[in-house]
């Protein structure tokens, strides 16, 4: 910018002003947000979730399975629906106020999703970019591994791995195992598209220029290949939010419905240390299981509100990633 002539024309002044205005980070942020409504809306919702999550965490800490419980609610055959005192109604069997339970779940869900997606995205992006950039044996190993993992439905793969290792993990640490395994199953979903993007980015002139100017391979990978290969990551994240919630919901749902039909005790392997674990998917599954018997009972609030909280979160993530994708790849038509 300083290279511009000092006796600038008025239009140049204007452009310069706009460029200067961009230089304060806050203004840049505001500018980005106002031009990108989906990022604004999605980001705002996510921020609300984060604030609520922080508040819930400060209030409850990591009190696993300590949902506020009432015996009379648990045994109620006709649990009360939404009222002013209990805006999301009561869930019987678990015997909890649903609004409180969903609130207490926020930090757990954020932590679960954050860690699973964080690990998977970091691992997948890095491995994909490296494979696409380096080619050769690294590429072969990564591609074969990715092809292998992608060819088994992630839902089944997670269960196979989880159950094989379940017995070796102390009961309080099953969630940690679950997070690690899920990340291990999901990373190929990032590695594959990132790899093919990185492959084409590697042949871009600016990468050749960087190589010609003596940039080290690591620097080229981190500064040029990675940032320019991120676009597929944003498209994939909302789908994986779905995958994670699908498994978190299906685990307790199958256990619960198996229990309901045959009267067996709860013998299903689950990542949750207790059946009343504060987690949206768990609450949704139990809400469906106890609140919705087709043609018989329909305590709609027991599944509606968990689903609502979950869907709102997913929509926020999708809007945010769509917005981010536009920020990182402004030229790509969305």
């Amino acid at each position, binding site marked *: 910018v300083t290279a511009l002539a000092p006796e600038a024309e008025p239009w140049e002044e204007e452009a310069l002003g706009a460029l200067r205005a961009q230089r304060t980070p806050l203004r840049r942020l505001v500018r980005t947000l106002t031009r990108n409504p989906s990022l604004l809306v999605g980001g705002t919702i996510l921020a609300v979730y984060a604030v609520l999550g922080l508040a819930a965490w400060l209030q409850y800490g990591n009190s696993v399975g300590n949902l506020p419980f009432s015996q009379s609610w648990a045994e109620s*055959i*006709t649990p009360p629906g939404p009222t002013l005192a209990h805006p999301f109604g009561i869930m019987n069997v678990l015997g909890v106020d649903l609004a409180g339970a969903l609130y207490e779940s926020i930090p757990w869900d954020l932590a679960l999703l954050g860690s699973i997606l964080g690990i998977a995205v970091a691992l997948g992006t890095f491995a994909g970019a490296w494979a696409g950039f380096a080619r050769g044996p690294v590429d072969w190993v990564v591609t*074969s591994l990715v*092809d*292998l993992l*992608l*060819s*088994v*439905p*992630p*839902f*089944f793969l997670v*269960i*196979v*791995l989880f*159950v*094989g*290792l379940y*017995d*070796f993990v102390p009961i309080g640490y099953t969630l940690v195992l679950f997070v690690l395994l899920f990340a291990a199953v999901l990373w190929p979903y990032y590695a594959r598209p990132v790899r*093919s993007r990185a*492959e084409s980015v590697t042949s871009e002139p600016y990468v050749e220029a960087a190589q010609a100017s003596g940039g080290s391979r690591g620097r080229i990978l981190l500064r040029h290949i990675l940032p320019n290969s991120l676009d597929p990551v944003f*498209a994939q994240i*909302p*789908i994986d*939010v*779905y995958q994670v*919630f*699908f498994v978190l*919901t*299906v685990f307790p*749902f*199958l*256990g619960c419905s*198996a229990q*309901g039909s*045959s*009267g*067996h005790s709860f*013998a*299903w*392997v689950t990542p949750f240390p207790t059946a009343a674990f504060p987690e949206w998917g768990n609450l*949704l599954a139990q809400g*469906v299981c106890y609140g*919705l*018997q*087709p*043609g*018989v*009972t*329909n305590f709609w609030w027991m*599944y509606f509100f968990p*689903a609502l909280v*979950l*869907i709102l979160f*997913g*929509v926020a993530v*999708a809007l945010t990633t769509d917005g981010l994708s536009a920020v990182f790849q402004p030229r790509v*038509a*969305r």
Partner: protein
Amino acid sequence: VRLPPRSGARTLILLLLLLLLFGALPAGSAHRAGPATSPAALLALMSPPSALPLSSTPPPGPFEWATFHGDSARSGYTSVRGPSSTAEAWAPPQATPLPIRSGPVVNSTRIFVADIEGNVVALNRLNGTVVWRTTVWSSPTTPTLAGGTLFLGCDNGLLYALDAATGRLLWTQDLGSAILQGTLDVSGEIIAGTEGGELYAVNDTGAGILWSHSLGSPIAGAPAEAGGVVYAAGTAGQLLAVDLNGTPVWSETLRNVTLDVGFAVGGARLFLGEANGNLSAISAANGSTLWNFSTAAGPFEGAIEAPPATDGQSVDWIEGGGAIYSVNATNGSLRWLSNASVPSAGYLLLSAPVLTPSGFYLIDGGETLDDLNPATGVLRWSYPYGGLTIYSSPAVIQGGLILGTDDGLVNYFSPPSSLASWPISGTVVNPNGTPLANVTVELNSQSVLTGADGSFLLYAPNGSYLLLAGGAGTEPFSLPLTVTGPISGLRLVLRPVATFSVSGELVDGDSGRAVPGASVVLVGPAGYEAATVSRADGSFLLRAPNGTDFLSVGGLAAYYGTSEHVVVNGSALVGLKVALSPVGLASAGFFDPYGIYLLLAGVGAGALVAWLAEVSRRRRTAGLSGRILSRFGRYVLMRASLMPVQLLALLALLFAFGTFLPLVAEKAYAGLSSWTILKDFLEGFLAFAWSMVSGDWGYAAYGHLSEPVTTYIAWWLPYTLELMAFALVMSAALGYAAGLRAGWKPDGPFDFGTRIASLLGLLIPSFLVILLVLGGAYSSFVHVVGDTPYGILPNLAWFDTHGGLPPGWIGIGGNTLPTGFPLVDAGIHGDWQFFEVVLAKTIFQATLIAIVYVAIFLRYARHSAAEHAHALSVVAARSRGVPERRLLWYHTGRRALPEFVLLFAITLPVYIGTQAVAEALFSDPGIGNVLLTEMTQVASSGFGITHGNGFPAGNLYQVTILFLFLVVLGGNLLADVIARYLDPRLLSEGR
């Protein structure tokens, strides 16, 4: 062993587990546990628990209906099969000119009814002619028939005893105020409740009142009895339980409750309908309320005026509003609710319903006889009385239903064959003359168990039969019998079976050391004969009868189960030696049969390579490129050659996580050196991989089935493929059209709409969508189209067209024969009703799958379509004036199609997961359902190890996942090839 759903088999497994525990103790304590391991005790434990209601009186015969609501427990349940249609409805000449409002009682020869003025009539059960007629001058309640005497409690407070044979009055007893609803005969006591609130016990020989209790308000309904305790309720909510000496057992008062009806007893629970429409379950032991079911209806419309019927598992009733409920007897959860009834506000529904295993009979709306499917509440048939109100409670006997009406008729719903049956009775004894209880006696495809005195009673029409009898520990008995009239006093002498000892020892097949703690079971043609657990020195001793022909060993994680052919034929078998092969070790010499093929394959492969090299050399010599295959051919070869590597990696994963790690967790390797463990792992893996690849998949227990894994797949794969064909076509059509249309104008209204819809479709779990649709649409679907013959509910109307059973071409796995594709097989057998129902269901499911899957597919597809929509070729075509519609569907569609194919391949696993969930929710006989079911049983089955159960180990889930993997891999390969065939540029892009 996968836990099968049948309780008998569960009992057996529990028992084996218990035996394992005992077997693990030192020899001394195992001896102390001796009685529990004796064959007789084992056999006694093996028999499934009795499901009969708790009652001290013997269950009624198939043609008996002796008191109000059938039995002294007032359960309204009978195990006979009632009428299955209205086809046999008929009425004999009018029995009385006055309305009949109490229920009829029936024995094998007579029907007894009483009208509202006290005229009592006995009819011949077979043809409806009047045998005798008398009057008691007062409106009676439903009579009680006991020991040849008919007891009637009447409005004038008198209890009458009439001789059932002649109608002669034997005695009367004044109880002070009107006797309500029904009396009861228990061990010589007639129990009656009165309007004055007294519960009386009267000696049934007319010797006066034995005891009485006052409840303080009129007795509600009929008193009930179970297990020697009489239960009665007062209308103001007082509950009383007294024993037969009149000593109170407990008493309890329900607050704010008005009761119009008495208890129905099932299991150890008393069920009580309340005037506010609630149904309570009360503990028979202490009167505490176990659960309460609220029908939440108005004060009059919702009132329960007739007791519920219960088989101990479910409780079914009709309330004043006309709604018919069925709830789980254990926890009060609703099983079904039927509204397919006559609206009935304003009527008192006093007629007590009757539950049988095949039908639930009730008077609906006061004027229609309905028969509902007891499992589902779906109406099977109904018989309208056209404005005539019915108060009489029906009596249900084998094949028939009898009912009194307000115009004095006795209606029969009964096929003639059940009317013309003769009673055949007798006693079963052993050679010493001691009566044998619980012996099965069979005649003309009826079977009964003998009572404690060895007696039995069966019915048969004229004809020649073979009477069969047999029980545990007796030799089978048969007697040719010609029936031309009633036969009584038969004496069947059953000889005990001689047993012979079978002993031996169990050894480790590798080391030869003793194997303690394994279960040893002897099996004969009739089933299990004896079972025990091997002792600390590996030895076992059992006793078994002649004909026993299999010895089954299993129950240990570390050894495969095995079965040996062992024939017991008139002498003891000693010194049997059974070698068990340890789990995880490769079976010795497994290469032997295949080594020669491997060698041949190696030689062949070498020759092929040499030949190709020679071809290539000659091409080069001729100045051509040395490459033999085209670019496309090389690509296909490269992709295909990756498959074995991927396959091997998946097998390693399945073995390590499914078989090896659970073994480690079970401490199967405790104390072994790491070298041994490694060797074991590698050898085990080789054996595992080889048997998986070679299709040697063994047997697996699934539910109550034990079949080769290949059989399961042959049964259920066609079903899955059929559903898949429908769902894929719908998904593809929908995904292609929507994806293209959305990508055509990104951020346009259609794209925005599909984006939101696909996001919602993604985030709402598929099973919630499916359940909501099930809830909203499935019941109406069932009413319109009918149920599926398997899956959620059996359609009884459909079954009835096949004589009450599934047709022969539906196999034990719910699979159809011969092809396994239900629609194809229905066509082959010309069963178009089946075809329609299955087609409708399949389309319904396919639509649901498509809704969920397309949402996922779109997320990827619109990006790809958007790119192609702005390609230069499209812009150029537009400038040439090509119409937009053609640009979209032809120009862009053609270019996007290859990528759509690739996207489909990528999302195939997600598709399979969605279909599996859909199959599981509809209980389909498909592979996806099998996989999910296997996984729900993970924790109880030791995932991946089929514990020795006498079958070679087979791992259904490992095979199923392998199968899915091959499908996905094959699908991917196919998609890659198709995409590159459609768009050869992909080859050069290295994608």
